[in-house]
């Protein structure tokens, strides 16, 4: 202070005194809006720093929040994936149940049509293919009244006949088996023949005369002449009509029933039902 009082221009002292008085004024004066001028001045000076600090703080906070959110999203994603897997399994099970219900409903309709006493429902438990033989193993047997030579059908058509019976299971010879033979008739022209399996996916209709009227797409049904299969059950559709070979001609039939996907069947017990519209 002595140097300030004794040397040079008094600008520094003037500045100090004016500043001191200004600070005193600002600290005691409230502005029109009621805020302290000193506070206002300090806030004005500090505002940029406060804003920067706030921005940095909020930025860091935002980063942390986003990181935490990402972690939460990752966990939620994992949980949702597991949930999706579980729901997918449930949906598949539900779809399976729905399809099974549809099949069983068809079987029930068939059973109602044939009479409850005449039908035994059975589940296909195995498929056999030894050599050219095409057989099925079903989950009903003699205990349920199943016997040899009883026809096995599905809502779509004929499957085959029972060839072996045990108390709880039965073996079914499908119409695809080369050793099988089903008395058949063309629904449209009433041309008769015997349907014999070809072992793979088709059968052939034998004993069809060279002059018989046969076309691709004709429906082949059981004729009932073999006294095994009821009359009028659908066997399949004609897919190939060959040239005449001597007295007969080759007629290839694709079974209406997809034996590879068959799961439930009905065993027809005596008396054999007569299907409506089965022809004469």
């Amino acid at each position: 202070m002595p140097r300030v009082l004794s040397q040079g221009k008094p600008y520094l002292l003037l500045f100090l005194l004016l500043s001191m008085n200004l600070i005193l004024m600002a600290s005691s004066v409230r502005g029109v809006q009621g805020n302290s001028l000193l506070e206002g001045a300090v806030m004005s000076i500090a505002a940029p720093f406060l804003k920067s600090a706030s921005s940095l703080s909020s930025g860091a906070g935002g980063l942390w929040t986003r990181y935490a959110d990402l972690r939460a999203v990752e966990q939620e994603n994992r949980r949702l994936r597991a949930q999706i897997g579980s729901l997918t399994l449930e949906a598949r099970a539900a779809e399976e149940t729905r399809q099974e219900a549809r099949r069983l409903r068809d079987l029930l309709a068939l059973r109602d049509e044939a009479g409850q006493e005449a039908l035994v429902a059975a589940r296909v438990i195995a498929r056999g293919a030894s050599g050219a033989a095409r057989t099925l193993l079903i989950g009903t047997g003699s205990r349920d009244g199943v016997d040899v030579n009883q026809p096995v059908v599905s809502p779509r058509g004929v499957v085959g006949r029972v060839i072996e019976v045990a108390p709880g299971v039965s073996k079914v010879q499908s119409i695809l088996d080369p050793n099988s033979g089903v008395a058949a008739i063309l629904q449209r022209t009433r041309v008769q023949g015997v349907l014999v399996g070809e072992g793979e996916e088709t059968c052939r209709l034998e004993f069809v005369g060279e002059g018989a009227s046969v076309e691709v797409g004709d429906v082949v049904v059981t004729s009932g002449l073999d006294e095994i299969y009821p009359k009028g059950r659908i066997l399949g559709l004609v897919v190939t009509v060959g040239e005449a070979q001597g007295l007969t001609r080759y007629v290839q039939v694709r079974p209406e029933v997809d034996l590879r996907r068959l799961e439930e069947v009905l065993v027809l017990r005596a008396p054999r039902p007569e299907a409506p519209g089965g022809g004469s």
Partner: protein
Amino acid sequence: MTILRAVLALGGVCLLQMLLGLHLPAVARRCDLYSIFTVYIALTRPQRPALLLSSGAGLAQDALAEAVLGLNGFKKTLLAYLVGTLGSLFMLNQTIPRFGILFATALFDPLADLALSLAMGRHFVFPGIWDVLQSGLGNGLVGLLAFWIAARIPS
């Protein structure tokens, strides 16, 4: 004039202004002894002590008059600097120039008040010209009297 004498003089100014305010308020409104003290100090003392004493006088006026602390301190400091600067440039030791300076303080005071009020966002009503003239006249006459008395006080 030593610092002690200056401080004593400032005390006397404070006492007189208070007495005037109590007993002769009309005179006190037209005569600012603190401004007269500031002009006297600024014209007779070096600038630094003058600035300090003027600032002290203003702060004392603020404290005693219950004004905003620092308002008169600021004004008196600035007044002392301006008068001291003028005194170093012009011959102001004659009666008429001194009267002019003392008269001008009456105008400087409301102008400074106005500027500071605007700066601080406060309301201020500028006094009428008649009031300013009366204050200038009062400051001038009382100030000349003060100069005359001070000149007769033995150092």
